[in-house]
C-alpha cells in the first residue's frame, strides 16, 4: 500500500463518518441539556428516507418547470430531514417534560415506530437513482500536501459537518448560553436558582439536536449511500448513542469517536483483503472489540495515571480534555418548585 492509497482511505473515512458525526454532535447537545433522545436510529432512518424522497420529487417537479440542477432539490431534502428530526426530538422532550413520562421508554418505542414508518413509506422508492450533494473540492486548500486531499476534497455536506462540530464546540465551551446549557444538564435546580428557564432551554436544545440528527440521516442518503433501501442506515443511530458516551459528552471527542469508528471499519476491510483466509465475521467484530477496549480505558483509572506522568505544564489541560462527566441530571425530569 502506498501513500496515495492511505490518503485516499483516510479521506473516505472522513466522508463516511459524516452522518455519524452529525448524529453524535446533535445527541451530545441534547444530552448536555439533560434529555436522552433514544429515538436516534428511527429518526435517522425516517429522515434519510424523507431527505432522499423530497430531493427526488422536488427535482422532478423543478425539471417540469424547466429548472435544471440538483442544488435546490438537495437543499429541500436536507430541510425536510431536519424537520423530521426536530419533530421526533420534540416528541421525546414533550413526553418527558410535559407528560413526565420516562424518556428511555418514549425514545425506545419511538425509534421502532419511526423505523417501521420509514420502511413503509419508502417502499416505492427503493433502489432508484436520485439527486445527491455536489462534489466540491475547495480550490487552493485541496492542493495542500496530505491535509488537502484528506479534508478539502469532498462535497459540501462534509465541510458543513466539520463546521457544525466546530461551532457546537465553540458554542458549548466558549459562550454564556453554552455554559448555561452545560449547567442545565448538570444541576437544573442550581440553574433555576440563577433565573435560567430550565425546561425552555431543554426544549430548544433537544429540537436543535434532533435537527442535526435528521441532517445526519439525509447526509447518508444524499451523500454516502445515495438512494433508499430497507433499513438503509444500518444501525448507525445506535452507534451514535454509544459514541456520545465514549466521547464524554464533548463534541470534538465525539467527532473523533465517529472517525475512529469509521477507521476501524476501514481497517477491517483492508485486513480482510490482506488475509482472505480468515473468516469475515472476525474482522467485522474487530471494530466492536476496539470500541469496547477504548470505552473500558476511558472508564478506568489508567487515564488518571496517564495525566499523573504527563509533564506539569500540560497536566491541567490534559486532565481537562480527558475528563469524562455524564450530565448529572441526564434523563431526569425537572419541575420548578
Amino acid at each position, binding site marked *: 500500500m502506498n501513500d496515495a492509497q492511505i490518503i485516499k482511505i483516510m479521506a473516505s473515512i472522513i466522508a463516511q463518518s459524516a452522518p455519524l458525526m452529525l448524529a453524535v454532535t446533535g445527541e451530545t447537545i441534547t444530552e448536555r441539556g439533560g434529555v436522552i433522545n433514544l429515538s436516534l436510529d428511527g429518526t435517522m432512518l425516517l429522515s434519510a428516507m424523507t431527505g432522499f424522497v423530497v430531493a427526488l420529487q422536488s427535482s422532478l417537479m423543478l425539471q417540469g418547470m424547466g429548472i435544471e440542477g440538483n442544488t435546490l432539490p438537495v437543499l429541500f431534502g436536507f430541510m425536510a430531514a431536519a424537520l423530521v428530526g426536530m419533530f421526533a426530538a420534540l416528541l421525546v422532550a414533550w413526553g418527558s417534560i410535559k407528560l413526565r413520562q420516562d424518556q428511555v421508554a418514549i425514545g425506545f418505542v419511538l425509534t421502532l415506530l419511526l423505523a417501521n414508518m420509514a420502511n413503509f413509506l419508502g417502499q416505492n422508492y427503493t433502489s432508484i437513482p436520485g439527486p445527491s450533494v455536489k462534489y466540491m473540492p475547495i480550490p487552493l486548500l485541496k492542493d495542500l500536501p496530505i491535509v488537502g486531499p484528506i479534508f478539502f476534497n469532498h462535497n459540501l455536506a462534509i465541510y458543513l459537518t466539520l463546521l457544525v462540530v466546530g461551532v457546537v464546540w465553540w458554542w458549548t465551551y*466558549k459562550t454564556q448560553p453554552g455554559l448555561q446549557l452545560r449547567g442545565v444538564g*448538570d444541576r437544573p435546580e442550581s*440553574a433555576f436558582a440563577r433565573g435560567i428557564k430550565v425546561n425552555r432551554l431543554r426544549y430548544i436544545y433537544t429540537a436543535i439536536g434532533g435537527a442535526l440528527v435528521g441532517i445526519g440521516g439525509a447526509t447518508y442518503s444524499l451523500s454516502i449511500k445515495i438512494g433508499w433501501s430497507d433499513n438503509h442506515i444500518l444501525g448507525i443511530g445506535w452507534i451514535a448513542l454509544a459514541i456520545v458516551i465514549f466521547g464524554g459528552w464533548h463534541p470534538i471527542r465525539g467527532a473523533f469517536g465517529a472517525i475512529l469508528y469509521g477507521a476501524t471499519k476501514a481497517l477491517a476491510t483492508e485486513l480482510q483483503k490482506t488475509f482472505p483466509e480468515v473468516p469475515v465475521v472476525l474482522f467485522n467484530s474487530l471494530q466492536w472489540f476496539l470500541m469496547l477496549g477504548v470505552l473500558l480505558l476511558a472508564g478506568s483509572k489508567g487515564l488518571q495515571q496517564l495525566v499523573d506522568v504527563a509533564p506539569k505544564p500540560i497536566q491541567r489541560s490534559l486532565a481537562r480534555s480527558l475528563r469524562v*462527566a455524564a450530565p448529572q441530571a441526564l434523563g431526569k425530569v425537572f419541575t420548578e418548585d
Partner: protein
Amino acid sequence: MRVELQDIQKIFDQVRANDGISLVLEPGRIYGLLGENGAGKSTLMKILSGYQQPTNGTIRLDGQDTSFSSPSDALCRGIGMLYQDPLDFPALPAVENYQLAYQDNLLLDLKSGAEHLRAYGQRFGFAIDPHAYIDTLTLGERQQAELIRLLSLGAEVLILDEPTTGISAEQKEVLFNTMRHLAHDEQKIIILVSHKLEEVQQLCDEVVVLRQGKLMGTRSMPSPTSELVRLMFGGEIARAQKQLFESGRCVLKMEHVTVRSEDLTIQDISLTIREGEVLGLAGLEGSGQQVLLQACAGLLPSSAGKILLDDATVKGKHSGFYWIARLAPGVFAIVIVWLLIRLFGGHIAGLDFAGGAAISLLISGLIWLIGTILVAWTDQSPYHAFQQRGGAYVPAGRLEEGLIPGLTISEHMALAAPTHTFVVDWEQIRSQTVDRIQRYNIVGQPETLVDGLSGGNQQRAMIAFLNQPLRLLLLEHPTRGLDVTSTNWIWELFQERRREGTAIIFTSADLDELLEQSDRIAVFSGGVMSRILNAGETSVDELGHLIGGQEL
C-alpha cells in the same frame, strides 16, 4: 437594608408550617434562627429567599411591600441564600460556576472571571482556585465560592442554612469571621439557620426561636442556654410516677462500646436496660443517638466493646450451606481428576486427560456459582439476627427507611411476617391486615398504598407491622409531626408492650415527652453520652444544659 416580615403564614395541606410570624431584621446584625427539625425555619427562609410564596402575610424591604417571583428575583433585590448543599455545578470549574448566568455577554471571559473570583476571595479571606472543578472542592470551599457569587451579585441579606454541617473547624472559623465583618463593617444582615446552640451563641447578636411553626420569642445575646432550650422545646412538665428497674431480667447490655459512623463516633458507651424499662435519648439531631440505636440493631458494626442482647452478642450467621458451597467445587474437581487418572488412565468418554480436566473445572465453576447464590440467599445479616431474637427498629424517616412507597398495607404485612412461605397466602395476610388496621386505628384499606396514608397513619402502620412479642424496641422520634391525640394513642401502645416485658429505647426532640415517658434518660452531645439520669429526678433545665454540652 431593613427587612420586615409581617404575619407570614404558610400552609401545606392543612399543616401550618409557618403560623403568623412577624419579625424585623435590622442592618448590621447577625441573627440566629433556632428551632428543632420541623419547627418551620426552612419554610420561613424559603419564603424570604423567593423559593416559596407565603399563603398569607407580607415582606417589606426598606418599608416597601415586596413579593418575590423566584429565587433569582429575590437575589436581584438583595436577598441571597446559601444552602447546606450549595446550589452550584459539580461538573464545572469554579470560574465557570461563578460566571454561569452572571451577565448577558455572549462570549465567556474566563480570564476576568478568574480575577474577580480571586479578588473577592481575598477580600473575604477565602482562597478558591478558579480552575479547580467544583466536585473536587470541599464543602467548605464550595460554600465560600457560593458566598462570593452571592455577594458579587449584590446580596445585602445573607441566609446561611446550617452552614457548619460537614465543614472543618478552620473553615468554620473563617466563615464566622467573614460573617462578622460583613455584618458589623459592611452593614449587611446575616441570618444563621441552625439547631446548634453553641454556634448561635458564638456568632449571633440576636436569636429568633421557632417551635411548631410559631415564633416563640426573640432574645438578644448573650442569653442563657437554658432559656433558649426552654423556648426551643417547651417547658411545662406533668410528670408521672417513675419506676426504677433494678431487678428484672437484663435485656440489653452495652459494655464500653465504640461505634464509628460516617460523620460521628460515639465512644465508650456502657448501659444496661431491663425488661419493661423505657430509656429516653435526648440531644440535638445528629449527636449520636441514632448511631447508638443503629449499633444496637446491628446496622452499624461496633469497633470496640460488647453489645449483648439477652446475654448473647448479636451477630450474623452463615447458613448450613456455607461450607458445603465453599468446599464442594474443589472436592469435586479433585475427585474427578483423580478418577480420570486412576480408573481410565486419562481417557473417559472419548475425551483425553486435558479435556476431562477442563470439563471438570467448568462444572466446578458452575457448582461454585450456584453455591455463592445460595449462600447470599441464606446467610443471615446481624440486623436479621437482631430481628429474629425479638428486636425491632423503627427509623424516623417513614417513607425513606421504614415503609416502601408503592406497596400496599397488606403487602407490607406480608413482608413483615415473622415466617415467610414461598407462595404468599394472600387470604390469610388480608385478614391479618384487616385485624391490625382495626386494632391500630389506621385510616385506610388493606389495598391502600402506604404513601397515600397521612403521616400519623404511616406511623401507626409502622407500629402495626411490629411482631408480637418483642424483647427490645428501638424507636427514632416515634411521635414526630403527630398531633396530641395520635401521640397519646401511640404511647399507650408502647406502654402496653412494656407491661408485656418489652424494653424500649427511644429518641425524641421533645423534652416533655422524654421526661413523661421514660424511666431513665441519657443525653448525647457531640457523640458523648452523659451519665444516665433518673427521669423522676431531673428537669428541663438540667437536660438543656446537658444538651448544650455543659456537664453539671
